[in-house]
């Protein structure tokens, strides 16, 4: 009886889920991407990425509402495959990266939906302006990676209106679009 009790106690101590404490994961920049597309004069979409992304994700497997995420993107790392256009996007006409170097998303609440779907509500800050927004989020696999570390992943597709963040240059009919489609995909490694 005492042996069984001691065994149960030992299991309780070593089981990570027994504490129901959020676990910290750090974003792996090499396997994380932020891709966006925006309407160009009504003719087509221009695609771009941000190369420099970092952040942390706190995951509570038992109680997902206690999970959180904090992501920072360096605005100067924008890349649309045209050097001249990237310089223009970094200038005060658009991102004004010297004055507003970071684009951030800080979650306030996480709600689990069906299956691996979640809804993350938080504050998105861009160009010196912050807005509350809710992002549909899909959780991917969690498990051991080839290097023996615990790794998780997720993705989100959402849209923002750049005018809501004071980025008004070339805004209007048949100019550069207002709505920006954002595709975020990340992997994070458990600390």
């Amino acid at each position, binding site marked *: 009886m005492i042996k069984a009790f001691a065994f149960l106690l030992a299991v309780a101590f070593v089981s990570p889920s027994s504490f129901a404490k959020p676990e910290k994961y750090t974003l792996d920049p090499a396997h994380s991407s932020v891709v966006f597309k925006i309407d160009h004069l009504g003719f087509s979409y221009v695609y771009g990425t941000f190369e420099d992304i970092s952040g942390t994700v706190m995951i509570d497997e038992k109680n997902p509402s206690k999970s959180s995420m904090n992501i920072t993107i360096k605005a100067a790392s924008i890349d649309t495959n045209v050097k*001249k*256009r990237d*310089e*223009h996007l*970094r*200038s005060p*006409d658009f991102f004004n990266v*010297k004055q507003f170097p970071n684009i951030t998303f800080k979650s306030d609440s996480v709600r689990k939906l069906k299956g691996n779907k979640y809804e993350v509500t938080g504050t998105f800050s861009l160009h010196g302006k912050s807005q509350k927004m809710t992002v549909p989020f899909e959780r991917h696999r969690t498990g051991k990676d080839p290097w023996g570390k615990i790794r998780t992943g997720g993705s989100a597709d959402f849209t923002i209106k750049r005018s809501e963040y*004071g980025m008004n240059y070339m805004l209007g009919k048949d100019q550069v679009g207002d709505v920006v489609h954002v595709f975020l995909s990340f992997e994070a490694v458990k600390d």
Partner: protein
Amino acid sequence: MIVESFIKSSLIPALFLSLLCLATGPLKGFTRDLFQGLLFAGALSFGIYMIRGGMGQFELGGMESLFYLPPILLLSVIFTGRFGLGFVPRLAVVSGLVLVLSHPLFPSLDLSSFSLGDVHLRVAVAFILLTWALWSMGERHFAEEGRWVSWTVGCLVAWGAAALFFLFESSALMSQLFGLFATVSGMILAVSFLFGWKVSARAASAYLMALPILCLAAGAFYMEVSSLRLVAFCLPFLVALFRLPVSYGRLKVLREIIVMGLLSALVVGWLVYQAYKASSGSLY
């Protein structure tokens, strides 16, 4: 679109400003400084408002402060005109404005080890001294018989070249801003050529020289452009300074405009050409 924007943000304010300067030209002393200071502040604020497409964003510090530079400069025009304050208050105004402009960059400075080695600090000090010096010189030379020609031509060429430079350096906002300054300078020059100089030296030096140099400082702070290249756009004023010892007697205004214009254009044209060569053309 570009032509329409140019007409609304540059041509209309410049035209109204020059005609109203002509109308208020016969006024004397402080009254003329006050009225023309108001006209300059109004026209340039309107032009900047049109360039930014409305004042959606208005914060203390950074690029947004370009919005309220004209009204602040109006205060300094009034104070210097009314109380005869000059050199030191101008330095205080310029230092304050450069601090406001560069304020958002402070976190990137290591203020605990405050030294002149910090790039932003050096750039700030350089632009404070440049604006202070040229503002003071401009105020003196715009007021002197005949010399207004070389100084106004200097403004036209310097700010026109800066507008082209920023176009190649990928900032439509800065390009339009300097387009506005160049158009105002050109229009003032044209009206003065036809009817004689009727502009307050205090207003002209604050708005045709100090304000654009402060905008150059904003360009240095918020764009990946070497501040030395931006300072070089003030070289036409050095040409105007070298012109000083040469007699202004029997001045032929048109000849002066052509010679000074060509000399100034030669000096800053090289900078614009380099920017053009380095770019793949104007904004894509």
